[in-house]
């Protein structure tokens, strides 16, 4: 079987590079790329192996039948702002998400714009993923990657709960996600997420990304607009904020990021993680926030002028 397999790979490789248009290679590539219809697998000798792979364990992927699948994925399915405009598949991405821990729990605040290259695909994306009633995950990077793997994490958390009759800790949940990312390292997944919740040890916040980085911290912002959000957050963040101040800070940081970052916008969705679970505080259109803060600034400027005039 071995020599035949190599031949297949070589031909597939050549087909991919446009070097060979042989019938065999064409059939192979069709079999590889045809993930829709099941086709007549029994006829195709290569097909039966592929069919096995595709119907196999739900957590395994079919990978391109090329010599170096990782490099192939990275080259043709890369996720990058501006760098993927020539690709056949442009992933939905572009985001500002932030989360910070304070005395009253954790605030999670996100935007809702999704861009594919220069096209705004959606302005109403739910970038906070409700893993379960006491765990939240955020979405930054490839939307599909985030949504899928965080739902997968939700499944793993539920199994843990059933087996051990107690909720999973945030540390363990984020570790499971990071370990999964490590398995697929180099395959071009794009995911920058914050896993947050309130467990036995209190409110916890972890940052996990697609190369299996896992960081514990008090304040994170992820996405193309994160630098703008960090500016606002770092200047006003204190651990002893009141809940109202923290909510306001979360809103402001997202607004400022959406104002300057082209890939962020839409509505600001804000969640508060409390001891008994998370609560959705609300959604605000960032355009309305713009005029709201503009008015505030004017009023503040007016008051300052009066002060200067009267002193």
């Amino acid at each position, binding site marked *: 079987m071995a020599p035949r397999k190599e031949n297949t790979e070589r031909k597939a490789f050549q087909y991919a590079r446009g070097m060979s248009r042989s019938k065999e290679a064409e059939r192979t590539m069709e079999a590889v790329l045809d993930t829709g219809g099941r086709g007549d697998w029994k006829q195709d000798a290569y097909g039966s192996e592929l069919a096995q792979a595709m119907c196999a364990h739900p957590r395994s992927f079919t990978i391109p039948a090329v010599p170096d699948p990782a490099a192939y994925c990275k080259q043709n399915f890369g996720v990058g702002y501006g760098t993927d405009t020539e690709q056949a598949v442009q992933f939905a991405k572009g985001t500002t998400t932030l989360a910070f821990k304070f005395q009253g729990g954790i605030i999670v605040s996100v935007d809702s714009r999704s861009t594919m290259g220069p096209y705004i695909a959606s302005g109403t994306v739910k970038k906070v993923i409700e893993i379960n009633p006491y765990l939240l995950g955020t979405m930054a990077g490839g939307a599909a990657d985030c949504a899928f793997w965080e739902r997968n994490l939700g499944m793993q958390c539920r199994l843990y709960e059933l087996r051990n*009759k107690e909720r999973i*800790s945030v540390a363990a949940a984020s570790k*499971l996600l990071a370990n999964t990312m490590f398995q697929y390292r180099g395959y071009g997944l794009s995911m920058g997420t914050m896993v947050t919740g309130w467990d036995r040890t209190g409110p916890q916040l972890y940052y996990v990304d697609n190369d299996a980085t896992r960081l514990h911290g008090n304040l994170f912002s992820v996405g193309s607009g994160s630098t703008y959000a960090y500016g606002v957050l770092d200047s006003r963040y204190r651990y002893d904020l009141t809940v109202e101040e923290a909510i306001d800070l979360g809103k402001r940081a997202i607004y400022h990021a959406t104002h300057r970052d082209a890939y962020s916008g839409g509505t600001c969705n804000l969640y508060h993680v409390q001891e008994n679970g998370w609560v959705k505080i609300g959604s605000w259109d960032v355009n309305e926030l713009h005029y709201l803060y503009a008015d505030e600034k004017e009023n503040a400027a007016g008051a300052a002028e009066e002060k200067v005039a009267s002193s």
Partner: protein
Amino acid sequence: MARYDRAITVFSPDGKLFQIDYAFEAVKKASAVVAVRAADTVILGVERKTIAKLQDPRTIRKIVKLDTHATLAFAGLNADARVLIEKTRIECQSYRLTCEDAPSLEYIARFIARTQQRYTQRGGVRPFGVSSILAGFNTDGAPQIYQIDPSGTYFGWKANAIGGRNFKGMREFLEKEWQEGLSQAEATKLTVKALLEVVDSGSKNMELVVIRRGEPAATMSDESVQAVVDQVEAEMEEAKTRGGSASGGASSATAMET
């Protein structure tokens, strides 16, 4: 019936798996283990079988540490136990790595049970001839004892005895004498009493380990064990000479310093 006891994966017509029953027999041949749950301690006691004169007794360990918070005593084939303990130790560390927390005692018991069950449902392997008693504390501080069988079942116990030629008798004794909320001294005496049912008197024939919350398991010295044995035997003598029924385990007037 003899046809059904070769392969583990074959049921007998009356629904038995003979290999598992024979594994239980192997456990019976081993030395006894007693475990007693007190109010805030767990006492583990094992029968120390007589060993050859030239053997170094320190290398024979029937009570082992699985993790900082979990202790295991086994009855059965020593070699099988060694393999099972090694697998369990690795699993405890793997759990710590993945979940950044200590595995609960129930998780460890479930793992051992799952491992033992796996070897009852595959071709070409035989079950582990080992019964284990797992002792430690819950996250909420309550003391716990779990027993895991060669069949792969696990149960929590308040007090239990496995192995030895008369573990049923020891268990009945414990059923009569065990009470909720024993002190460490009372539990130690109860353990010694249960062991004396099957071993000849003397501290060199038994080994006791005291597990307190938050502390590593501590082996009792020979002298302290001997002191408890002496006390128990004195009480039994007293009861005999008085001609009344044997004194209950928890009704001791003198408190023991251990």
